[in-house]
């Protein structure tokens, strides 16, 4: 700590250069923050997927249905605690651009399989008691300014016409990555009113007693419906969510590629700054060595300066990215879980430290190797 003032003072030598370098690092880490937020938004389902849940879907495609009768047969599989189902409603609120997902669910089993979504009991009961009832995630409710008791009209391109629902409750996620953009509707109401496709559901979710039994349960489920008109494909919820995210491309590869280019550029910018800062200061480094600073001490000083520079810029950029994400999904519903978590911020800061160390390494080694007599000769 006693050397900190010495390091900080060096930032004031060329204020413009310091500001520009910190700005470059801040912009790069801001970009990193946004990229990882988009990545985590697209793979949010993967991150929060329950290890003790399996998803059973039509083997041919997710958009093809499964018979309702499978629910009882799935329940009979050993290690299966509960089975619930959901179906895609596909409605629009006011404008087709106002996208948000709606699931028609089995109200009798839903909360037993998805306990992480918190909804007050009285609101849940009001929903159960009202076939035209709906429960919205807080994200969507806040997005459209809904409150409990509102009548919500949804245009239903799949089923035809406008369907109206009574908002009976609002649910919250209990974890940072939980998706609060979904609206829950009654499957029974959907099945009753839709003109076709009666008696089928979209997919089942099974809650099992132990994640270790996942493979056994999945195999048993698929074997049970093999050679039937509705063969199934059963996988863990994580695998299901990963596959879903991959439908829009390998986002992670894209994020990593852009991030790598940004970090490499950042490395060059910071490295050039540190190299020129050290070059200008050669006689002073000679003085430090003269008064007794060891070669390794000078190396540490230069590295500390480089790391501090990167940390200040990185902290600023990540702080701005966090502020930006606090405003919520900027796409109007495409990225419902738009959240920059602490782990990603920590990783960003670690990246900044790594950039600082790498960028400062060559100048620091040069400073360490500097011979005092050569340094003092440059006065």
């Amino acid at each position, binding site marked *: 700590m006693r050397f900190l*003032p010495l390091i900080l003072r060096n930032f004031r030598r060329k204020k413009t250069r310091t500001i520009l370098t910190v700005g470059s690092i801040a912009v790069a880490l801001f970009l990193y923050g946004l990229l990882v937020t988009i990545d985590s938004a697209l793979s949010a389902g993967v991150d929060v997927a329950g290890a003790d849940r399996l998803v059973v879907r039509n083997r041919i495609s997710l958009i093809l249905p499964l018979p309702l009768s499978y629910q009882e047969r799935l329940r009979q599989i050993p290690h299966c605690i509960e089975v619930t189902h959901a179906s895609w409603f596909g409605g629009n609120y006011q404008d087709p651009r106002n996208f948000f997902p709606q699931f028609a669910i089995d109200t009798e089993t839903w909360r037993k399989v998805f306990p992480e979504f918190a909804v007050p009991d009285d609101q849940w009961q009001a929903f159960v008691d009202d076939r035209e009832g709906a429960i919205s995630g807080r994200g969507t409710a806040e997005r459209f300014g809904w409150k409990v008791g509102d009548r919500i009209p949804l245009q239903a391109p799949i089923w035809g016409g406008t369907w109206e629902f009574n908002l009976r409750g609002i649910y919250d996620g209990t974890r940072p990555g939980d998706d609060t953009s979904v609206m829950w509707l009654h499957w029974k109401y959907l099945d009753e009113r839709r003109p076709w496709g009666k008696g089928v559901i979209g997919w089942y979710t099974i809650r099992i007693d132990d994640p270790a039994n996942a493979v056994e349960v999945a195999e048993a489920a698929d074997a049970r419906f093999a050679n039937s008109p509705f063969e199934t494909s059963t996988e863990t919820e994580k695998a299901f969510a990963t596959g879903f995210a991959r439908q829009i491309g390998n986002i992670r590869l894209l994020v990593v590629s852009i991030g790598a280019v940004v970090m490499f550029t950042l490395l060059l910018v910071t490295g050039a700054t540190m190299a020129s800062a050290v070059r200008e200061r050669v006689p002073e480094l000679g003085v430090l060595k003269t008064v007794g600073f060891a070669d390794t001490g000078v190396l540490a000083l230069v590295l500390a300066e480089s790391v501090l520079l990167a940390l200040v810029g990185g902290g600023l950029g990540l702080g701005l990215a966090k502020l930006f994400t606090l405003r919520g999904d900027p796409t109007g519903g495409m990225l419902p879980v738009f959240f920059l978590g602490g782990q990603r911020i920590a990783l960003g800061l670690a990246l900044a430290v790594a950039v600082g160390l790498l960028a400062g390494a060559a100048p620091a080694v040069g400073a360490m190797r500097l011979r005092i007599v050569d340094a*003092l000769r440059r006065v």
Partner: protein
Amino acid sequence: MVSVDGTDIPGSLIRVRHLNKQYRRGSETIDVLQGLNLDVGAGEFVAFMGPSGSGKTTLLNLLGGLDVPTSGSVTVDGDEITSMSARRLSSWRARHVGFIFQMYNLIPVLTAAQNVELPLLLTRLGAARRRQQVATALALVGLSDRAKHYPRQLSGGQEQRVAIARAIVADPTFLLCDEPTGDLDRKSGDEILDLLSALSRDHGKTVLIVTHDPRAAERADVVLHLDKGVLVHDPATEPVA
């Protein structure tokens, strides 16, 4: 007590034996110091004179452990510094040597007090004790009222006094001064010389000064000339050996 002929002076602070320093310039080898011997007792004020390129600064660098000789030895207060590792030498310099340069060599972004504090950062002293020692050193050079000034806000003479404060703040065994008045006007130069004389006379500091300035040499107890790579006594001063 100062000797240049290799005769051992009992209890000498600095003992140099058969010191050689060669430089290579292209294919040419230049012998700067050639078997130089020197003994200096504690508390002496010694001036080294000689033409440019005679090796005065080289000698000073070798005495201060800033450079390594081609051969020979330098022993200070019983420590042979020519056989020390770079790390040990750094630590030795911090404890035993105060350097004063012609161009002051202050760090421009640090205040006078922070510049003076630099050698103390390497000690185990706490912040309060460091502040106290810095204040004492600045008071000794008459710059208590300039502690918070940056080098650019000081005159050349004041800058050199800050450099002297930095050199003495850790109470080193001896001071090495390389043309300390070379960049100063006469009045400021005299003030610096007064200060160095007082440090030697009143505080018992051993002072070795490289200079072209005869007025600086006049303040010294002994004046030595570098001639063809070895030291010889100035005929005008009394050799004691």
